[in-house]
Structures are given as C-alpha cells and as structure tokens.
C-alpha cells in the first residue's frame, strides 16, 4: 500500500508541474485561483504541524512532541538552518521523553 501512495502521489505532483507549463495562461491566471493556490500550503502545513504533534490516532494528546515543536519554533525564529531546526526538535523530544 505504501508503494501505491508513493507512486500515485508522485504522479499527481508531476502532472501538476507539467500542467502549469502546458496550459494557456488564462486557465490558471485567475487571481482568485492563484490566491487559493498560495494559501493552500499555509493551511495544509499548519494543519499537519498540529495534527502530527497533538494527536495519536483519533485522540488529542499532549506529550513530549509538544516540547519538540516549541524548540522548532524557537529555532525558526532564531533563523537556524533547516537541519538544526529538525535536529533540535528531535533532541528536545527525546530528552523530555527520558525525564517524563
């Protein structure tokens, strides 16, 4: 099943790229469509952040991952490089898990 998701997702992402290069300007040029397309990543990424931090299955939980998220936000505010942001979140989560 994982392969199906990998291949279907990849095909969809590729076709979206190809469509952009291929369709006439007016089809996707609508300002409303453009605005929605630029807000979509913001909404989806924000939702993924909270879902993957504060839920397990269908339950809302507060656990060590929340500390990792706080560390990540602080690192981003301090303009840390991507890898540092991710590493700090992991280390913080692991340490909090040890102490809890």
């Amino acid at each position: 099943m994982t392969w199906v998701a990998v291949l279907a997702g990849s095909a969809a992402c590729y076709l979206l790229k190809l469509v952009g290069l291929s369709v006439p300007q007016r089809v996707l040029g609508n300002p409303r469509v453009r605005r929605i397309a630029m807000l979509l990543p913001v909404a989806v990424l924000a939702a993924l952040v909270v879902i993957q931090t504060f839920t397990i299955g269908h339950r809302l939980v507060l656990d060590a991952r929340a500390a990792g998220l706080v560390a990540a936000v602080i690192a981003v505010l301090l303009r840390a490089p991507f890898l540092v942001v991710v590493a700090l979140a992991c280390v913080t989560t692991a340490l909090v898990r040890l102490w809890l």
Partner: protein
Amino acid sequence: MTYDAGDRSPADQPRFPPRGAPERRAVLRVALAIGATTGAYGLSFGAIGIASGLSLLQTCALSLLMFSGGSQFALVGILGSGGGVVAASGTAALLGSRNAFYGLRLAELLRLRGVARVAGAQLVIDESTAVATTQPTEPAGRLGFWATGLSVFVLWNLGTVIGAAGAGLISDPAVLGFDAAAPAAFVALLAPRMRGRQPWAVALTASAVSLAAVPYVPAGVPVLLAALVAILAGWRRRPDDASADDPDGQPA
C-alpha cells in the same frame, strides 16, 4: 541536454548567457549554493522517511519521482501516523498544486517543447522558480531555472540516500525523538510563507479546524478541511490586497 532555440524567442536573444559572461557565473554560484542547502534538507527527509516506516527504496523513489519537499514530508508523515493511501497522496498533491502556478509563470520564459518540457516539468519547484524569476535578463533566468533545478535535484537525491541509509542503522526512531522531526520540518517550511496578516489567520484557523475534527472524522479528512479554509479565505479576499503569489526562496 540540448534544446531548440524556440520559434517564438527573439532572434537576437541567446538561450543562455554566453560563456564568460559575469551573470552566467553569478547564476551558477547561486544554483550551487541552493543545491547544497537542499542537500541538507534531503538528509533529514531521508531520515524521516525511514523513521516513518518507509523502506530505503520507497524513500529514495519519492525524492526522485515526487521531487517536491513539502509534498514528500507530508506523504511520509501521514503514512507514518497511520493515514491511508488517499489521504497521503491527496495531501501531497494539494501541497504540490502551487508548482502548477510556478509552471505557469515559467512557461513564457522557458518556452519548452517536447522532451525538454517533459524533463523540465520535474524541475519546476520553489527554488528553481525563485531563481529563474529574479534574474536581470531572460537568458540568465533560463540558465537559473536549469542550473538550480538540476543542482537541487542531484543534491536532494544524494542527501536522501545518505539520510535514509544512516537512519536505517538506528533501531528505535521514537527514542531519538524522530516523531517530532516531521512537524519541525513543516514549521520550517511554513516560516517563509508567514508574511502578512492573512497567512497567520489562515494557518491558525486551519490548525483549529483540523484539530477539532480529528476525533470525529477519518484520518486525512482534517487536512482536507484545512485546505477548505484556504479555499474560502482565497475566495473571499479582495483583489486589491497585496499579492501573495511570489515564490521567494522557500525550501522545495
């Protein structure tokens, strides 16, 4: 790779800046620097892919075939937290939809046909668009697209292999806090988009709506509800507001 000059390009304009031109070196330097940075992202993607339960081959296939960082992180994150095929690939596609609009902006500059378009399409990402659309001349813009796209493609895939192979040596990812890696990656991807009041309003509303829905709807649906928030916000926004359509160097 070789290209036609293209019928519609002005006859006096070269496809790329000539050899030895200062703008040529400047563009190539930027392309390499961006490629090196995304190579580091690739490392963390490879590690997160393995920690999410994908095989080495599946993780590397994503970087080769999907080649869009946000979509890849989302897909492995959703699969790792028990989401289904439709939720995972659908969310990846939602995040990848912005690339269609990048392509729209690039089409006139690149003027690709045939094989060049089929190959070039895969390189339409945040970074290549940002470099291509911010060059002083069209030849430099075209060079910027190809150089940045190829440099990111090579180093992102290289980083993925190394990160995935390294993570494969670790027995229990949760002990190392790897389950916090994907949300942290999303925060980093989100940060450059959070300029102005509307992105904040959309992000906070989408977070609240999706979190509230989690106990009551199937996995994956909360993310679709978040997408709905973006659609409603974009629909309502007045056209004279500041434009939000610039790809400005966010990670892939």
